């Protein structure tokens, strides 16, 4: 049965290869081929899942050794896959949501002449993401890690003719590379410390290494996670990544790829458990990002960018939970899965809106769309309720647990982290309500564009609405399904371990506080946007609003310090190379030339001059002879 693991990856990889190399002949069937292979992968995942369920909890992890990858003295990297409960969860999420989004894209990308290539890239992404979660060592994980980065690069920049898309793609890749640097340093540290970088030996012997070493590894892993999961300080790429087609935003930049950082931290739990300092940094990063993303999300008028801020914020929750250690790992993953459902649903809903609105993304040009696209409205609304944590829906269960766990951290840290998480919940309610109201309620605010085409909002075709409905169902019921009887905890506990925290506040108090804050947040949003008409042009806003619109000035900082500074550095280096390094050599040549120019004057061509030097030489010789005799 474990031999099927490789097929999980092989199916979408084959799809990518065929679609990308196949040429125009496949244009007609390419998208269906891609969707079929993604679905095949999902079916394989389900088969493996049922097989896994049939085994005892302790024997569920299976490995498949394919071949020896890099065999060098002392350095053995193998292509080996490991399927345990954690990877299984991801496999199902990736292939499941992935297949749905493939299906959705068939409709969404219908009018794009490069649709075949789009599906090729999507398949490539699936393969890389599966490789990431199925790898049994960090180096193979790194391959998947960069593979999803590549797929993300290709898909963000899919509409390459737009310079903004190309720039965003490049930015995403570069920022991710900084994170990748952290991952590669972490792998090197593991290699020097443990002599290997396979999960099992590293994680089992983590305790025996020094804490300093482990903290270093942990921080490097965190850097990697920050890059991939758009956490502060490497979060700047995610907003720009919304230049990609919306299904890409849903699949890669909401449901799956950006959560890889959480996967990495949870997977490396044993290292973090032994390095409390690193854990603390993880929680801080999570808490900061949680608030950062939420604040940015409040200010954006671009629906996708608002959702991107929300994604950042929600991943902040997960990272925060992952940083809490065994009390949080499982809830991080649980929130990750439920978030995969509702955020993908929200993005697909946003895509559906854009589809009907001539690709308009400014929410100030929407309004009152609930009557025009009812299915989108309902599914989006369910996603909305799930994300703000409406009781009974997925988000309620998963987010609540994280807030509880944050308090359970104990001490001042627990209060601060828990407070931040609570505050985040309130802001989440605010900005999501804002999105909801601006898009679906109020007066219609759309206008003809420059060419005079007035949008004619309409419901999307079935191929697009079906995935949205499926995801909406998931967003409603997944949380409850996981939480009833602590199913999810029991499922993952053999891999990640689990501990109950001692919360200073009772679970009930947390829930009530969360609900109160939810109502407050939603209420303020309603007061601002529901009771008053929304302006079609954004008001100037307060200083904070303006800063939040600009991603809290992080890009400006990057631009001034990194981009400008880098440009100056490279320019001056080019100059230095030309004048100094080359100049030293050329200068040597020139001075030799000058010297020989002077020496040349001695060779004036007059025989008598030469005779003088001969005669002088003879005199010197005589003098020397005499001197030698004298001595």
């Amino acid at each position, binding site marked *: 049965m474990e031999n099927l693991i490789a097929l999980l990856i092989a199916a979408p990889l084959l799809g990518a290869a065929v679609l990308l190399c196949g040429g125009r002949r496949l244009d007609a069937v390419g998208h269906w081929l891609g969707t079929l292979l993604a679905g095949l992968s999902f079916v394989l995942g389900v088969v493996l899942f049922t097989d896994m369920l049939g085994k005892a909890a302790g024997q569920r992890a299976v490995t498949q050794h394919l071949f020896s990858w890099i065999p060098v003295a002392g350095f053995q990297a193998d292509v080996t896959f490991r399927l345990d409960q954690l990877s299984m969860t991801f496999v199902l999420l990736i292939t499941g949501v992935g297949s749905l989004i493939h299906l959705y894209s068939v409709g969404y990308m219908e009018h794009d002449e490069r649709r075949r290539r789009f599906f090729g890239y999507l398949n490539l992404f699936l393969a890389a993401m599966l490789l990431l979660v199925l790898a049994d060592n960090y180096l193979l994980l790194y391959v998947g890690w960069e593979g999803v980065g590549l797929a993300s690069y290709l898909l963000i920049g899919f509409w390459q003719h737009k310079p903004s898309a190309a720039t965003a793609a490049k930015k995403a890749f570069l920022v991710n590379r900084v994170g990748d640097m952290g991952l590669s340093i972490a792998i090197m540290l593991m290699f020097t410390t443990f002599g290997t970088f396979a999960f099992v030996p590293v994680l089992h012997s983590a305790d025996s290494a020094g804490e300093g070493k482990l903290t270093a590894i942990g921080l490097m892993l965190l850097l990697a996670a920050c890059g991939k999961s758009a956490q502060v300080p490497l979060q700047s790429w995610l907003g720009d990544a919304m230049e990609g087609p919306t299904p890409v935003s849903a699949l890669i930049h909401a449901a799956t790829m950006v959560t890889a950082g959480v996967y990495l931290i949870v997977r490396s739990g044993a290292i973090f458990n032994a390095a409390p300092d690193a854990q603390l940094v993880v929680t801080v990063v999570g808490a900061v990002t949680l608030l950062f993303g939420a604040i940015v999300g409040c200010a954006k008028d671009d629906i996708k960018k608002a959702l991107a801020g929300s994604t950042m914020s929600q991943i902040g929750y997960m990272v925060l939970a992952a940083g809490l250690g065994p009390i949080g790992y499982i809830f991080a993953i649980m929130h990750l899965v439920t978030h995969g459902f509702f955020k993908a649903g929200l993005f697909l809903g946003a895509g559906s809106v854009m589809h009907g609105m001539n690709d308009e993304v400014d929410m100030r040009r929407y309004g009152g769309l609930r009557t025009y696209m009812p299915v989108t409205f309902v599914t989006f609304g369910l996603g909305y309720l799930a994300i703000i944590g409406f009781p009974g829906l997925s988000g309620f269960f998963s987010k609540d647990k994280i807030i509880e766990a944050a308090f359970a951290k104990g001490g001042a840290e627990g209060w601060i982290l828990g407070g931040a998480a609570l505050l985040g919940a309130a802001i989440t309610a605010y900005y999501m309500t804002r999105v909801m109201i601006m898009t679906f309620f109020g007066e219609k605010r759309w206008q003809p564009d420059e060419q005079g085409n007035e949008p004619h909002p309409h419901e999307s075709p079935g191929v697009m609405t079906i995935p949205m409905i499926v995801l909406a169902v998931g967003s409603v019921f997944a949380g409850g399904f996981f939480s009833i009887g602590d199913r999810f905890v029991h499922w993952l506990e053999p891999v990640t371990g689990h501990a109950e925290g001692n919360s200073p506040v009772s679970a009930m108090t947390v829930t009530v506080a969360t609900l109160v804050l939810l109502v407050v947040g939603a209420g303020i949003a309603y007061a601002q946007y529901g009771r008053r008409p929304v302006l079609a042009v954004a008001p100037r806003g307060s200083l904070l609003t303006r800063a939040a619109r600009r991603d809290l000035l992080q890009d400006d900082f990057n631009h001034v310090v990194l981009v400008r500074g880098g440009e100056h550095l490279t320019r001056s280096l080019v100059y230095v190379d030309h004048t100094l390094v080359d100049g030293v050599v050329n200068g040597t040549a020139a001075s030799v030339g000058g010297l020989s120019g002077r020496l040349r004057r001695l*060779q*004036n*061509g*007059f*025989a*008598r001059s030469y*005779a003088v030097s001969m005669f002088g030489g003879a005199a010197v010789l005589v003098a020397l002879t005499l001197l030698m005799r004298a001595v």
Partner: protein
Amino acid sequence: MNPVNYLYLAALLFTIGATGVLIRRNAIVVFMCIELMLNACNLAFVTFSRMHGNLDGQIIAFFTMVVAAAEVVVGLAIIVSLFRTRHSASVDDASLMKL
């Protein structure tokens, strides 16, 4: 008088000849100065022959004369043909280099 005075004379004549070679520009005069130097050498050889009481010095002087004769013949021929082509007997005119 010590016969070593002949050597002083030879050295003096040699130096005068050498300076002449360096100063004069007329190829013929330069050539004459060279002959002067050769003669100074011959005088030294002859004196040495007397000093050491054998004839080898004179033999060398003899050969010097023969070679000088050969040299003069060829050298003068060169001067003549040089004069024919350049219409000048100045050694400086043989320089074609630019400074």
